[in-house]
């Protein structure tokens, strides 16, 4: 319905606007002078001291000495041109810093999405088919218990068990430092080796959701009349399950997969911190700890925009799959 679509666009734009506004107003709301408190409170971290030149640059950048509306215009103009400012810590343009770390996050998030979706659907389907058996109850209880454990605690457990205790996986990083590769295959293997636990953590944290959704939707779908009609037509169990039941049950799963990226963005900061994986999550953490404001704002913007893009994609794809929805 057109009305729904309008409100959907409205929601997208207003979310974007709120994020931009927060991005804009937050530094201006901080207690005290933003640039004299750039020390870290972690023991062992570097203490960043600004030179007068840097201070002046940032004052100019934020336009703190100019009236508000001018500041906002400058802010918007900068955004349009893709100028996200300069990172205090890295001493590079923020966009460069982001581009350096974003691919790692994309790798684990996309990997986790694919793995959790496929395994969740498969397990959910099996569970729906066998729902009377005792083994299913065990799996259900196990999954439900799993679902409640937040991703970073799960990650900690995996880290402790597989990396620390069993020494099967590395403790940190995306690649082995200072490694020399004998070809792209070896490099790929190294990357996978390091990405395994983070991807496993993120997958596990989402798997249960997909599993429960698939299982419950399938169970609901199998009680519907059209499944009985399909069976009456003598089409055979396989056709009935796949062509009729799953086809309908997967609609909410598709939606959820789309939103999964957004959900994972919440946990990616923590998971990357647990595994010291150098994606934008960890970068955000160190930026926050080091009060690297331009970088923080930039990463936040990237996260928000990627979630919005995913939402739009989901909307489009769902419209294609479900003929009852008018695009």
């Amino acid at each position, binding site marked *: 319905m057109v009305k729904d679509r309008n409100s959907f666009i409205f929601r997208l734009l207003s979310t974007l606007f709120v994020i931009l506004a927060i991005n804009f107003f937050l530094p201006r709301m901080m207690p005290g002078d933003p640039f004299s408190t750039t020390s870290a409170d972690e023991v062992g971290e570097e203490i960043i001291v600004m030179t007068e030149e840097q201070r002046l640059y940032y004052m100019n950048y934020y336009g703190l000495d100019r009236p508000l509306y001018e500041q906002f215009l400058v802010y918007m103009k900068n955004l349009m041109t893709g100028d996200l400012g300069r990172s205090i810590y890295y001493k590079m343009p923020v966009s460069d810093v982001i581009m350096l770390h974003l691919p790692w996050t994309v790798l684990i998030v996309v990997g986790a999405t694919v793995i959790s979706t496929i395994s969740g659907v498969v397990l959910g389907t099996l569970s729906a088919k066998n729902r009377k058996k005792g083994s299913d109850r065990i799996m259900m209880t196990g999954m439900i218990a799993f679902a409640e454990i937040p991703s970073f605690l799960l990650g900690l457990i995996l880290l402790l068990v597989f990396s620390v205790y069993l020494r099967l996986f590395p403790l940190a990083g995306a690649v082995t430092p200072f490694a020399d590769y004998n070809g792209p295959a070896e490099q790929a293997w190294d990357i996978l080796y390091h990405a395994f636990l983070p991807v496993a953590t993120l997958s596990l944290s989402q798997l249960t959701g997909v599993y429960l959704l698939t299982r419950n939707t399938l169970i609901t779908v199998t009680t*519907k*009349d*059209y499944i*009985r*009609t*399909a*069976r*009456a*037509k*003598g*089409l*055979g*169990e396989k*056709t009935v399950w796949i062509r*009729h039941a799953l*086809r*309908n049950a997967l*609609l909410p799963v598709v939606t959820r997969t789309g939103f999964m990226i957004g959900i994972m963005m919440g946990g990616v900061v923590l998971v990357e911190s647990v595994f010291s994986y150098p994606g934008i999550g960890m970068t955000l953490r160190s930026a926050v700890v080091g009060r690297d404001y331009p970088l923080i704002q930039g990463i936040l913007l990237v996260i928000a925009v990627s979630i919005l893009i995913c939402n739009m994609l989901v909307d489009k794809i769902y419209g294609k*799959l*479900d*003929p*009852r929805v008018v695009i």
Partner: protein
Amino acid sequence: MSLLKINDLKCHYLTDIDTVKAVDGISFEIEEGEILGIVGESGSGKTTVALGIMGLLPENTAVSGEILYRGELISSLPESGMDKFRWKDIAIVFQNGLEVMNPVMKAGIQVTEPMIRHLGLSPEKARSKCAGLFRTVGLDPKWMDSYPHQLSGGMRQRVLLAMALSCDPKLLILDEVTSALDAFTRKEIRDLLVDLQKKNGYTMLMISHDITFVSSVASRIAVMYSGRVVETGPVRDILVSPRHPYTRGLVHSTPDIFVYKDLWGIPGDVPTGDEFKGCPFSPRCTQKIDICSEAAPVLMPIGGGREIACHRGGIAGLLEARNLNFSYRLPDGEYLQAVDNVSLEVREGEVLALVGQTGSGKSTLAHILANVIRPECGEVFFMGGNVSGATYGNRFNGIQIVFQDPFSSTSNRFTVLDAVKEPLYINKIGSNGDRLQMIKSALELVRLPTTDNFLRKYCGELSGGQRQRVALARAMVMEPKLLIADEITSALDVSTSANILRLLKGLQNRRGFAMIYISHDLSLTLKIADRIAVMNSGKIVEVGNSHDVMLSPSDEYTKRLVGSRIGLCCHTH
């Protein structure tokens, strides 16, 4: 060999709490080319039968008995075995609901799907056959590419029909196909079905709660109640003279069958499927005997292609009169033959109207039946016993009579209490307290007040309608099995008479007694009578189902009687 044969089929749904015996032992047969209708209300188990035949019952169902298709046992086949018969041999058209078709598949694809699988057609051939099927059921083939939610209810039902016909099944099961449709569409679907049957000779099993729909298509009907078949037979016979009390009640409750008659429901409620040993209808049956609560009756043939499941063989006969004769001696020596060789029968719970002009002998006949007058010859049997030998008016469950003139029915000097108490007093029935109780409930039945004030009133103080009701209460206090109402409303004005009539019929429906209603007003009797006997000069000239007699009389006298009706709706004769 019959196409489909069901032997003692039982389908019990097993839940954690209890067992629901949806189908509890039914048997029937369908011959090739026949259309059998299964009629019953919700909870009777008819849809379960359809699902059982197709093998679509849910997993927690215990199925026993045999389902034979062309002699092959299909009731115990596994899913893969059933799949060989589904759609190619037996197809089902479900009741149209929003979710009866897959919402994400186009309508055409859903129709071609079984064709491709079972008949091995290529997608193009299947599609063109589908287009042909669409046209057969009255749909433009362009709708093949639309989705179910884009179609109206009637269109969806047609798609379901096309889908069922797609693999040329031998047996077509139709489950409540017109329940959710409006009147126009219902007629169209009905015409379509009749047409299909004529052209292609499909064998059909039609399941519905709508008797009028089923009876307009099917040739035979089986009536189901609470998981059992209670009666089967040719359509017309069952409607015109139902032999089972439930079927009779069902016919009475359906407005379209006998349009002039008022609607009356069946008192009581549908059973909840609990454990019950006896006949499932017995709690609501007005003619039950002891064995009815102990053992369930078996379906037995009673001739004429009819079967019935009842311990009493269906609606039992109550009163039978044979060759009655009575004449009056006139002052001038002539004899007036008031009752001339009359034979009559009244069944349990039936309303027989005795219609004729003044002087036709109706009242005389009534008095003979009530044993007020002795016939010159002939006999009257009531529940097997000869009326003239015993008096059936002085006991419970006997015969009672209410007379025409309210002012002489009750004595002026009796109080209401005394008047109604009279039969109890005469026969020394019950203590004073019991009698008061019975009197009060009888008065309540006829909607008279039961206050002490009213009970002390003299009958002379009451109006005609009230006195007639007192007379009725007096009759009802003896709980008769047969009530003879002799022109009881002729002396009353229209509104009072309407009230009394409705009261009487309501009582009759609830208590289940039989009634002989005597009147000279044909139109009035149409409203309440099951059968009409027309009397002329002492003879019964015509007897039959009330609507048959009214609308297509065969006797000359009856025709004249019917033709003499005046009023708004009669000039279209």
